[in-house]
């Protein structure tokens, strides 16, 4: 019933996107596991885990699009929530290693052993339990976003000021997690994972399951995001983006709406991080780097902001381009190509790939309501 309702409420673009994801979730793992490696339709494990990574980025991009594309909050620190979710997952995976670490210590992760930590710090308690870790994946980024947003939105910090303090937030976390004294493995981060829920993280079947899980979470997050933006709350949020003080004079508590969307988005980013870590096999503080967050913004802009599907598309396109460009003869020059791509898209495709394609495709049909041309919120 509910799915039928959602499907009916969904535009064509969303449907294609969901169908594609559902297909990927099902067919890629099946093809990887069942077809022989020589077969034309066989998807190699490396390709599958690569696409798993792209899809995690797509989820992160959707979460950013929710706050930026719809609410006009340009977060230059969304990587922080992604990384926190990743760390929560990483801590669970570290605890699963148990006594199989190189020093064979049943409690302490290796990096704590060789830096002479006497006992497990209190904030590592509980992470051996999967449900607890999953709760933390949502709670830690969500709580940080809630507290940060509570102050920032109440104080009506907007535009570039907000962007810059989100950047300060992720930069401060970057520095903090780099410190070995924090007990998160310093620069090396958390790595060398063995098991997830008792399954070997490197086994082909686990990878296939993780890939499918990523697709499922992407579908779920997309549906949640769609549900939010299609509700009346979504209309309020777009109203806030386009005319914040008007919305306030209509009696809406703008700060609470922003806080809600920001927190939901941070939780989604956390989930993306949690799925990312077992697939790439490492989480380290460089995920907090401000450059990463800026890049996420660029994915969304390239795909088309305020479209959700476009954000996911942008993430996949840019990262796929990166994969291609960083190999072969392009390797020393790929930054030229990537930089030029960013300049090109901003100059000639201000609505992103999806927005431009849509304009071009459906000139005769009525335009989609949610695609902003300019960026009114930050122009203040």
């Amino acid at each position, binding site marked *: 019933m509910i799915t039928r309702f959602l499907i009916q409420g969904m535009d064509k673009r969303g449907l294609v996107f969901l169908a594609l994801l559902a297909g990927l979730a099902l067919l890629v793992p099946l093809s990887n596991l069942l077809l022989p490696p020589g077969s034309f339709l066989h998807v190699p494990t490396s390709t599958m885990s690569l696409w798993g990574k792209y899809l995690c980025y797509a989820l992160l991009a959707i979460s950013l699009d929710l706050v930026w594309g719809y609410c006009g909050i340009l977060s230059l620190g969304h990587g922080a929530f992604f990384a926190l979710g990743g760390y929560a997952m990483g801590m669970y995976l570290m605890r699963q290693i148990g006594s199989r670490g190189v020093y064979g210590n049943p409690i302490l992760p290796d990096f704590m052993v060789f830096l002479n930590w006497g006992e497990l710090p209190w904030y590592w308690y509980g992470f051996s339990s999967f449900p607890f870790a999953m709760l933390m994946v949502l709670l830690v980024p969500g709580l940080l976003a809630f507290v940060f947003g509570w102050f920032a939105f109440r104080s009506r910090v907007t535009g570039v000021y907000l962007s810059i303090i989100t950047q300060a937030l992720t930069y401060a976390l970057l520095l903090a997690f780099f410190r070995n004294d924090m007990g998160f493995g310093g620069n090396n981060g958390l790595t060398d994972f063995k098991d997830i829920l008792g399954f070997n993280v490197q086994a082909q079947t686990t990878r296939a399951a993780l890939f499918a899980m990523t697709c499922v979470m992407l579908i779920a997050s997309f549906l949640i995001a769609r549900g*939010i933006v299609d*509700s*009346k*709350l979504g*209309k*309020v949020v*777009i*109203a806030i983006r*386009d*005319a914040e*003080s*008007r*919305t*306030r*004079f*209509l*009696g*809406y*508590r*703008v700060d*609470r*709406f922003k806080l*809600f969307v920001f927190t939901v988005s941070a939780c989604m980013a956390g989930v993306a991080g949690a799925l990312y870590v077992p697939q790439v096999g490492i989480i380290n503080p460089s995920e907090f780097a401000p450059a990463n967050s800026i890049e996420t913004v660029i994915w969304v802009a390239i795909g088309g902001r305020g479209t959700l599907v476009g954000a996911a598309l942008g993430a996949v396109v840019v990262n796929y381009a990166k994969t291609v460009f960083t190999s072969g003869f392009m390797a020393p020059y790929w930054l030229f190509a990537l930089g030029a791509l960013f300049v090109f898209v901003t100059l000639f495709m201000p609505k992103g790939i999806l927005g431009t394609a849509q304009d071009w495709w459906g000139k005769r049909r009525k*335009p989609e*309501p*949610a*695609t*902003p041309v300019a960026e009114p919120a930050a122009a203040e």
Partner: protein
Amino acid sequence: MSQSVQHNPALTSSLLYLDGVSVSFDGFKAIRGLSLVIAPGEMRAIIGPNGAGKTTMMDIITGKTKPDEGTVMFGGSVDLTRLDEAAIANLGIGRKFQKPTVFDFHTIEDNILLALKSQRSVAKTLFWKTAAANQKRIDDILGIIKLGDARNRLAGSLSHGQKQWLEIGMLLAQDPKLLLVDEPAAGMTDGETAETAVLLKEIAKDHSVIVVEHDMGFIRELGVKVTVLHEGSVLAEGPLDQVSANERVVEVYLGR
């Protein structure tokens, strides 16, 4: 707040009561000792040259600007200086901006829907379902502002005059006790101006209204009591004919 204010008959019988309000920006006194009383059901026109403090006065009433000193009371008992914009709006004070401000990327219907009197909390909006009564109210308003046929168009595609009307429609949807209307006739054709005046008079039947306007013809059509602001305080008050005969007012307007 002094004790005497509490037992002031002018206060208790008023809808909106401003007394001795002052505010300054970086040393510039935008409002100085402004006092104004609006009775329930009254429609009032406010005129004054540029920089007289009209918009700042509206900012103070709607909570956007906090006064440095003075009393701002609503309904005789609520201190507006302590509330923020959203709380004031929910008390029943609606505002139309000088420059028409509608939600460009929403349809006209959605613009009205957003303004419609309802619970404004996050949870209520997330799980909102438009009931039949709401839909009827929206249809009625669209009829009043003559945009019923354009209900699915994006508000951003409307003409200037239509946007003014849409904004007035949004005010109606809010169903406020008091409407603050900033230059509703600005940029309108003569025909539109006349229609707007009719619309406002219609609204004033069951709402209190404060209209800020430059267009004397428009004010004359409204035919209500006029307050003249100058350099942040009240210069004159009374029917338009009386006010326009006031020598000081003429001086201020013509710059002699």
